[in-house]
């Protein structure tokens, strides 16, 4: 078995919890990223999800049906396994605060394949780097906006508090719920196999 490993690194002026919020927010996949269809969840539980999706391959006009399992392994690492008709992939998203205002996001992409598939690894490498850059650029405004909202005292499902004295900077105390809660009756949770371990 051959393994392709690609490491991509980016930096953002937001807290690690804001990065995790973005990473674990299922509802934005369809509205923000052209590469995803609305995922259909099969299982969600504190810190882990399993879903099926159709992901657009960079440069090509095809979509691959994928089964994706994601787990928040520890406070800094999210691990995702993706099974497609052609390969199995493992992504590790390492989120680390490097100073007061900056977080480093390092994604380690690993693909397994036989020797025939390995012939395509040089092309895979380019596709993965392109994929990472596209997704990063699409997500960046969300992270920065979320950081700003929290710094203004934003409270989820409510907004900016009415009273000035309640508008305290919440960036330091905010902890992302994993996976991120959604509103009721959303399409993503309509699969007949869906089960949730979350109350």
């Amino acid at each position, binding site marked *: 078995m051959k393994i392709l490993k690609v490491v991509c690194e980016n930096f953002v002026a937001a807290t690690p919890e804001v990065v995790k919020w973005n990473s674990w927010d299922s509802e934005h996949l369809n*509205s923000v990223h052209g590469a995803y269809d609305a995922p259909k969840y099969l299982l969600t539980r504190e810190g882990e999800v399993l879903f099926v999706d159709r992901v657009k391959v960079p440069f090509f006009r095809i979509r691959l049906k994928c089964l994706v399992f994601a787990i928040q392994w520890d406070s800094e690492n999210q691990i995702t396994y993706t099974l497609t008709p052609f390969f199995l992939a493992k992504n590790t998203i390492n989120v680390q605060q490097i100073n007061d205002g900056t977080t480093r996001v390092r994604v380690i992409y690993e693909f397994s394949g036989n020797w025939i598939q390995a012939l395509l690894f040089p092309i895979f490498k380019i596709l993965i780097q392109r994929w990472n850059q596209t997704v990063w650029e699409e997500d960046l405004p969300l992270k920065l*906006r979320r950081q*700003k909202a929290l710094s203004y005292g934003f409270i989820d499902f409510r907004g900016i508090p009415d009273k000035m004295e309640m508008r305290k900077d919440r960036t330091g105390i905010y902890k992302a719920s994993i996976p991120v809660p959604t509103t009721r009756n959303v399409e993503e949770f309509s699969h007949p196999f869906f089960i949730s371990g979350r109350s």
Partner: protein
Amino acid sequence: MQVEIKFLDLPVEGGSVTFDFPDLKQEILIIKKGGRFMVYSSFCPHFGGPLELKGDRLHCYFHDYEFSLTDGKCLNRDTSVKCSLFNFSIIEDGICVDIT
């Protein structure tokens, strides 16, 4: 707390303008529709995304949430979250918005 915005800075009919007040920790979206101004918090009440005017409703592209211009209610999700509308008064050279 009130803020004043000059007529020259306000949107034209069918348009919208966003104003940020970092010291007051609020960002507002002013729109003009049917000859009337309306003022909202520009933070989507769901997760804080930027609200924009889209046709006859407010839209947040983060999660495609849509809100009514008249009462701020969410129009396309099963939720009671509402966007904030602010009162304002017309003054000599603009409008005065109460954002607290």
